[in-house]
Every structure is written in structure tokens, then in C-alpha cells.
């Protein structure tokens, strides 16, 4: 057995062990089903929602919101990052403002977005895009800043035009760092979208969880929670895989 398989087996063992303890606690009557659903029951409800309910539709809504946020954040983020790199003084000045904005609890301003965009996915997309935008701006700016000047000198010595310099030297040099920004942005967008969907009770998977909680359907709450966690983990896994593939 390889080292990575052994580690994966351990991790799986920890998760399965924890679920078995919960299952035994609920079935044994040590914890009331009013508080906790047996994992098998929650899994069954999740499966029913997946096959007969609207879990797939809700997941697709969440994924569309995430995709829209990423597109907005990528387009505006790369352009803004490039602008801040080109205008050094403005870039240095705004770096601190962006960092301050990113670390402040901006998400609490979601009612403003609900008032502006209505209780729709547009509000979720508008606010979540901000959380994707900032890491992309910062990574893009730092990617351009860190381009090896020798590469640019080589390009200049080969009499490359500005367009050729940009296409053949700058873009390949900055792409990996910008991609890292996308990865970071996706993680933040995912958290923001799911969190806002739950809090504002709008959109996809997060709204499902919120609806279940309002109805006090304990098994459905845990099924929705399972769906949200599974989506987050699957998303991170795919992001990590794609980054590895991109770096090859």
C-alpha cells in the first residue's frame, strides 16, 4: 500500500468512525432525533432530493451564481490589476485600501444588496463578486510586478512590438500567478455564495438548507448541510486538481 493510499485510508476511517458514532448515538437514543438525524437517514433524504426533488436544480443555480461571480471578478479583476501595475503610485496607494476592504466584515452589508438588486441571485452575485475581485486584482498586480526584467530585456533586444511583448512574454509569465488568484477567488466566492444563499434565503443549495431549517425538518437540515459541505469539498478538490494540471 502506497503512503498516500494509507493516509487516505486513515482519513476515510476517521470520517466513517465519526459518522458511525453519530449513527449509534441517534439509534441508541442517547441523542434525540429532534437535534440530530442519523447519517443514514440524512443520506437517504439527500438521495431522495437528488433523484426526485430539486437538489440538482438548486445545485445548478449555485454553480451558475459561482460561475457568474468568477467571470465578473476575472474580467474586472485582471483589468484593474493590470491598471494598478501600470500606474505604480495608484497601485501602491490602493493596495492597502483593498486589503482593508477584504478583511472588513463587508458581508454584513448584504441587506444593502438585497435592497438594490431585490431578493434574487443578482444580489448574491453582486456581493460575492467583490470577494473574488479583490484577490484577483492583488494577484494580477503582483504577477506583473514580479515578471523577471531580463525577459522583457530579451524581448526588447529582439525588437518585439508592444503587442508581441505582451503576448509572447508578459502573458505566459503572469498566467500562473493570475491562475492562483482565480483559485483563491473561487474559494472565497464559493463561501460567500453559499453563505449568502443561506442567510438571505435566496438562490440554490444554501436556500434549501435555510428552507429546511425554517420548517424544522431535522433530517432535511442535515441532508442540506451534507449537500453544502459536499459541494464545497468537491469544489476545492477540483480547484486543486486543475491547479496541479495547469502547473504541469
Amino acid at each position: 500500500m502506497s503512503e498516500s493510499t494509507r493516509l487516505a485510508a486513515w482519513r476515510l476511517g476517521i470520517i466513517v468512525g465519526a459518522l458511525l458514532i453519530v449513527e449509534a448515538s441517534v439509534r441508541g437514543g442517547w441523542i434525540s432525533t429532534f437535534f440530530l438525524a442519523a447519517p443514514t437517514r440524512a443520506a437517504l433524504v439527500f438521495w431522495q432530493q437528488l433523484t426526485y426533488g430539486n437538489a440538482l436544480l438548486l445545485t445548478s443555480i449555485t454553480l451558475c451564481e459561482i460561475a457568474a461571480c468568477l467571470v465578473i471578478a476575472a474580467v474586472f479583476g485582471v483589468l484593474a490589476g493590470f491598471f494598478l501595475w501600470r500606474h505604480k503610485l495608484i497601485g501602491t496607494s490602493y493596495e492597502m485600501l483593498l486589503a482593508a476592504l477584504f478583511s472588513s466584515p463587508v458581508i454584513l452589508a448584504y441587506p444593502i444588496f438585497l435592497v438594490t438588486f431585490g431578493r434574487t441571485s443578482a444580489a448574491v452575485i453582486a456581493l460575492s463578486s467583490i470577494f473574488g475581485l479583490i484577490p484577483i486584482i492583488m494577484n494580477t498586480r503582483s504577477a506583473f510586478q514580479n515578471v523577471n526584467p531580463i525577459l522583457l530585456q530579451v524581448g526588447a533586444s529582439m525588437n518585439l512590438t508592444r503587442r508581441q511583448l505582451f503576448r509572447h512574454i508578459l502573458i505566459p509569465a503572469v498566467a500562473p500567478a493570475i491562475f492562483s488568484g482565480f483559485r483563491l477567488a473561487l474559494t472565497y466566492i464559493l463561501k460567500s455564495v453559499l453563505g449568502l444563499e443561506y442567510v438571505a434565503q435566496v438562490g440554490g443549495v444554501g436556500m434549501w438548507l435555510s428552507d429546511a431549517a425554517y420548517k424544522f425538518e431535522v433530517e432535511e437540515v442535515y441532508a442540506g448541510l451534507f449537500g453544502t459541505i459536499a459541494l464545497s469539498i468537491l469544489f476545492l478538490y477540483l480547484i486543486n486538481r486543475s491547479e496541479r494540471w495547469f502547473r504541469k
Partner: protein
Amino acid sequence: MAGPPPNRSAIAAKIQTPFGIRALTLLGVVVIWEFIGRAGLLFPELFPSVTEILQSLWTYVTTPVMLPHLKASLYEVGGAIAIAAVSGVPLGILWGSKKSWLEIVEPLILYAAVVPKIVIFPVFILFLGIDVHSKLAVGAIAAFFPISLLTIAGMREVKKVYVDVARTIGASPLQIAMNVYLPAIAGQVFTGIRIGLGAAVTGALLAETKVAKAGLGFMIVEYYGQFRIADMYSLLLFIFILASLANWAMKSVFGFLSPVSRQGGDAGMYF
């Protein structure tokens, strides 16, 4: 008698600094907002004038109207950060002290860290009710991840020779944790707690906006429900100022206690 008029180029030089541009940007935003608010050019209900917002903020600062809500939120955030630190630091030390444990546990923590903690709130409501304790729990779990992950990061930097020396002189695991690991990782732990504070504020207050009886987050949604937009903006401003002050205070105290903690970055989105 008025002095000579300041040289234009000197003013321009002052503006053309990062501080000058930042100040000018903020001033520009305030002036444009005030103009839009007074002229009613853009969604008059959504953009109250800055003076209106500041008047409302003044009410919060000078009257006890917010006191019960502030108390509830402070209790939640304070309790959350205490629980997260008390659980996150020892667990971080435990996981980080053995490579084999860390290899198993770290990916699980990293994957769990991505899950927005607010979605666990319905579970906490089931167990703890809609009072302050369910929000405290959301804040605690939100703060736990940055604290434990930074503790683990600190543990990675502890030189093995220190631990070997402690073992040679017969130190117990608890003594090694208290006298070797903890002083060596103090900087990272402090940074983790500071970032955890941001996570706890966001987690607890966001939970308050969902279901609560009191708290600053609860008031945001109350004002939103009553369409008191100027009050809502001023309350958000109040929260941002409080969070920034708390962050600054922690940065100063921890920076004094351990200079390493000054190198730490600011909080991202850990809610």
C-alpha cells in the same frame, strides 16, 4: 495676517503620495455620496446623505440605544474567540507535534476550512436555541480554523533540536508544550487569534442577521426590515470602526508581546 499662499507644486507633491491618494479617494467617495444623497440622483431611499448617516452614528455613540445589542454581540464574539483559542491552540500543537498525525489531519482541516461556517448555524440552533449561544458557537467554529491552522504553521517552524533537548532532560509532553512549543509559536498563535477575531465577528454577526433576539447583526436586519437605510449604514459603519479598532488593539498588544506576530497578514474570509 495670512501667511504666503502654499506653493502649488508642494501641495501636488503631498497629494502624489500613497497617503495623499488614499485620503483623496476616501474624500472623493464621501463628497460624491453626499452629492448623490442630497440631489437624490440615484435611488434616493438607498443613498441617504453622509450627514444623515453620521447623525445616526452620533446617536449610537452618545446614547445607550445600542448598549444591549453591543453587549450581546461582545459576549458572543468574546466567548467565541476564547473557545476557539482554548481548543484551537492545543489541538494545533497536538496535530503539529507529530508529522504522521499532521499528514492525516491537515487535509481534513483545510477542506473543512472552505465550508462556510454560517451553514452550520441551523444545527447550533437545534442544539442551543436562538439565544446568544448559537451565535457564539458559529463565531467559535469560524475562529477555530485560522487559529488552529496558524498554530500548525508555527509548529512547522519549531526547531527539532529544542524538542530533543527538552526530551533529553526528561520533560513531560505537557512541559514540552508549555515551555518549548508555546513560546516558539507565540507569534503565529497571536496572528491566528487576531485573524480569528475577524472571523468570529463576521460569523457571529452574520448569524445574528439570520435569527436572533439581540445583537448588532440583529439590528442591521431590523433596520433593513423597517427600511431605515441611513440607520443601517451608520450601524455598519459603527461595526466596521469597532472591528478595525479591535484589530488594531490586538495588533499593537501582540506586536509588543511578540514581534513575529506583526508579520502576519490580515483576515480574509473565514466566516
